[in-house]
């Protein structure tokens, strides 16, 4: 999910957002005389080349790190605290992190691409080391000793018997120290000082499990989510979406909600909402308002033709991402060719709650409370909606009801802005369930065609995959521009689909290889319930389901064990170590054909898959049980080997991996956005089922491989990627039936099993 613009599009001044911050000319502060002016009284502006933008220490010694990223539930806050505490030699308990408030943090891209530790964490590591260097410089001057004669422990600097606390070195002041900034904002922002961070051999906090100490408010119901934000005078809003995608309201019957005395209608072209003093009245108004809609042609093809549509539709763009050797020549001399096609559906973020946002406009300024992963960009979108300068808009991130990419939060923020502007009062808007499922941006459906050529020795001499689907980027991954919000599109802005997909990234060393992607046009070129944007590990599960299922199919054709066959086509020891770790942990036994181990009506099997992405290498072995009578697949056990470079918090990492695996199993086994000719029809948990407790694994056994000498990679998404293929391979092992279309729902598994019975039964 890399999102950052290639060059900063914001002016430097525009980075100095509102919220009562002192706005001063950057030029006036530049200059060597300010370097190391610790304890200077004036707070410098919130810009990426000021240390004070990232680290603050108060008189009591409390450390605050300011991070332009979000912790959406994986414990990123704790990992960042560990990194900062480590470099500063401060007690972990005295380090706090402020996230995603545009008045207090610079734009580091938000939650994106499993980058919280990889990008923001590394920036904070460098800057915390620099803060420590400056504090020691100050202490050395105070004690008239050399910096090398100082020792630091628990935020106290000592020179022999004399000591001083960080808090006393800083006083009420600021660092006022310049950083070297690479000029980028967002994910690519890099700022660093002169100090060199610690060597991993010196670590006392990083690399060790630390307990989550931020959970108590959640378990007593005292934690404020974005849905809990209350502003004096706030009204409740609800949106009304068209029943046929693409239709716009032609008339509304105000009298139909006259009995709801506080209800008001907000309408601007296709944008239609209601507000009321009480939330229940807003909901009733949204249900009871009589609306006439324009007649539009049904936009969607029959659902059962989706994959044929994708396969047949003309390319909007086709890109060969990886090309090695001469694929055509190698196929022409193949002893055998293996071919297969795989299909992955549209999927929904389907967050626990539909998105919510609150917007207040007051005294020429606006504040948006949002659960988005991109608050800095949301501020831009709200400024555009309100036609206000960006420096008058503050976005405050508050945890939303689930967050796995560019979900419906971005749309809620812009909806709330238009509603608040129209009624002149603060407005809180939240979707209803059918909107959370039906109108959130989707992960794209795709068709994958794979071909492999084997030589006489059963080695792969050529390998070719085309990933063809809807773009993963019908809208931007943030809501900075109105054309990328549902509100903007309902007001007539077109869908600006950018052709984007991706290719596989497994580390196979085939002598001839071509990996390509192609995108087709969206089904509807304006406000569409099937518009796509990033969903956790964008295109990763689609692509890996295809390639790692296919690898097993080729191994079967070659009469080889799937893991041994993979290792035989790899050269990178770092990757091979991860595959071996999973195999050893799960006591993998070589298999060259499906086991079809049956007990009563239950078939048991195991499957393997591997992936690389977001800075991590993951190998998974799935053990499944397939009920041959019902088609139910129980993902009984997963063994996961996970290598993401340097580990910051082992216990936090394990929990993060577990969540990835369970959610990915849900996507592989259950999840599929369906539609009829007019609209999305998977609009609640009955029509868009997800994994529930009866289907949860018995165990997820995790082996993490720590590489303290390497930079940390990501963990928020990587373990999602190989789960579907591991399950498909395990189902094949159990049943002898290959599933090439996800999800592996009971109905689909049952149909595949009965197809197998038909094809193998005597005539």
């Amino acid at each position: 999910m890399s999102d950052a613009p290639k060059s900063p599009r914001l002016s430097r001044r525009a980075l100095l957002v509102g919220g009562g911050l002192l706005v001063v000319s950057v030029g006036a502060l530049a200059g060597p005389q300010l370097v190391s002016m610790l304890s200077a009284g004036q707070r410098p502006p919130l810009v990426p080349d000021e240390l004070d933008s990232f680290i603050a220490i108060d008189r009591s010694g409390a450390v605050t790190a300011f991070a332009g990223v979000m912790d959406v539930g994986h414990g990123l806050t704790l990992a960042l605290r560990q990194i900062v505490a480590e470099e500063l030699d401060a007690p972990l308990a005295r380090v706090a992190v402020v996230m995603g408030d545009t008045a207090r943090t610079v734009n580091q891209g938000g939650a994106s691409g499993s980058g919280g530790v990889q990008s923001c964490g590394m920036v904070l590591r460098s800057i915390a080391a620099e803060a420590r260097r400056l504090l020691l410089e100050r202490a050395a001057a105070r004690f008239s000793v050399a910096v090398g004669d100082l020792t630091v422990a628990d935020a106290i600097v000592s020179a022999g018997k004399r000591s001083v606390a960080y808090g006393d070195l800083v006083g009420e002041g600021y660092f006022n120290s310049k950083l070297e900034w690479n000029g980028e904002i967002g994910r690519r922002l890099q700022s660093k000082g002169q100090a060199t961070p610690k060597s991993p051999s010196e670590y006392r906090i990083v690399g060790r499990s630390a307990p989550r100490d931020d959970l108590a408010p959640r378990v007593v119901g005292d934690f404020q989510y974005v849905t809990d934000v209350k502003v004096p005078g706030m009204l409740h809003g609800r949106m009304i979406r068209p029943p046929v995608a693409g239709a716009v309201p032609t008339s509304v019957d105000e009298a139909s909600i006259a009995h709801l005395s506080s209800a008001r209608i907000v309408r601007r072209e296709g944008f239609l909402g209601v507000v009321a003093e009480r939330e229940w009245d807003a909901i009733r108004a949204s249900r009871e308002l009589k609306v006439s809609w324009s007649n539009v042609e049904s936009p969607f093809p029959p659902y059962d033709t989706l994959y044929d549509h994708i396969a047949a539709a003309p390319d909007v763009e086709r890109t060969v991402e990886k090309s090695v050797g001469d694929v055509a020549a190698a196929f022409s001399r193949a002893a055998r060719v293996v071919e297969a096609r795989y299909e992955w559906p549209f999927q929904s973020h389907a967050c626990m709650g539909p998105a919510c946002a609150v917007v207040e406009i007051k005294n020429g300024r606006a504040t948006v409370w949002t659960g988005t992963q991109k608050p800095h960009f949301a501020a831009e979108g709200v400024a555009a909606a309100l036609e206000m300068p960006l420096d008058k808009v503050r976005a405050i991130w508050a945890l939303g009801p689930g967050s796995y990419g560019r979900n419906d939060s971005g749309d809620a923020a812009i909806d709330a802005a238009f509603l608040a502007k129209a009624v002149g009062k603060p407005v809180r808007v939240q979707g209803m369930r059918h909107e959370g499922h039906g109108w959130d941006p989707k992960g794209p459906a795709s068709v994958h065609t794979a071909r492999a050529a084997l030589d006489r020795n059963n080695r792969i001499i050529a390998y070719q995959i085309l990933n063809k689907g809807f773009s993963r980027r019908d809208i931007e991954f943030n809501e900075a521009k109105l054309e990328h919000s549902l509100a903007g599109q309902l007001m007539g802005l077109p869908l600006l689909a950018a052709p984007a997909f991706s290719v596989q990234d497994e580390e196979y060393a085939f002598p001839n290889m071509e990996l390509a992607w192609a995108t087709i046009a969206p089904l509807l070129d304006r406000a569409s319930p099937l518009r796509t944007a990033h969903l956790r590990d964008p295109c990763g599960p689609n692509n890996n389901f295809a390639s790692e299922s296919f690898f097993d199919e080729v191994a079967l054709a070659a009469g080889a064990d799937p893991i041994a066959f993979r290792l035989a086509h790899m050269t990178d020891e770092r990757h091979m170590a991860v595959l071996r770790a999973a195999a050893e942990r799960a006591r993998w036994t070589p298999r060259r054909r499906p086991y079809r181990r049956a007990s009563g009506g239950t078939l048991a099997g195991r499957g393997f898959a591997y992936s690389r992405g977001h800075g991590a290498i993951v190998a998974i072995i799935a053990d499944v049980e397939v009920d041959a009578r019902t088609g139910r697949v129980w993902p009984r056990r997963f063994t996961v080997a996970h290598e993401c470079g340097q580990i910051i918090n082992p216990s936090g990492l394990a929990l993060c991996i577990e969540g990835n695996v369970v959610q990915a199993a849900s996507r592989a086994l259950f999840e599929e956005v369906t539609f009829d000719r007019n609209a999305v029809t998977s609009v609640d948990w009955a029509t868009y089922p997800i994994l529930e407790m009866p289907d949860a694994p018995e165990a997820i056994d995790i082996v993490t491989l720590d590489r303290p000498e390497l930079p940390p990679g990501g963990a928020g998404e990587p373990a999602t990627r190989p789960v579907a293929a591991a399950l498909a391979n395990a189902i094949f092992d159990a049943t002898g039936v290959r599933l090439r279309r996800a999800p592996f729902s009971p109905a689909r598994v049952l149909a595949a099993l009965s197809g197998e019975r038909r094809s193998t039964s005597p005539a």
Partner: protein
Amino acid sequence: MAAKVINVDGADHTLDAAPDMPLLYALRDDLGLNNPKFGCGVAQCGACMVLIGGVPTFSCVTPLADVSGPITTIAGIGEPGALHPIQQAYIDEATPQCGYCISGWMLRAVALLKEIPRPTDNDIREAFAGLKCRCGTHMAIMRAVKRAAGLAP
């Protein structure tokens, strides 16, 4: 509108609200509680769960008129310093990710542990059918319930 008295976490409140309004909105908007949550509005997820007379109940589909009996939210099963075992176990096992769903799981757990103090894995799986956790914290939930029951997770 009609006056209605409800008891929430030990305190009485008089409401002036439509009798067909779901209890969820009375709790959130009239009483200003941050829990329970709106998740689906159709009793399919559990984010809105409360105990009414000790019975786990979807407040999003329970009309105010039908409420009889004291209501307990997750704020009422324990408090800082005297947490319910399931609350403590949720912390010890670092169970929540986003945590938006936890009313359903914790209150079903309270009822389960009352009925079956030492539940088996299957008891837990069955007791939680129908509840949703989108972050996929099911393994940690299982460990937390066992820990709260005094069983080795």
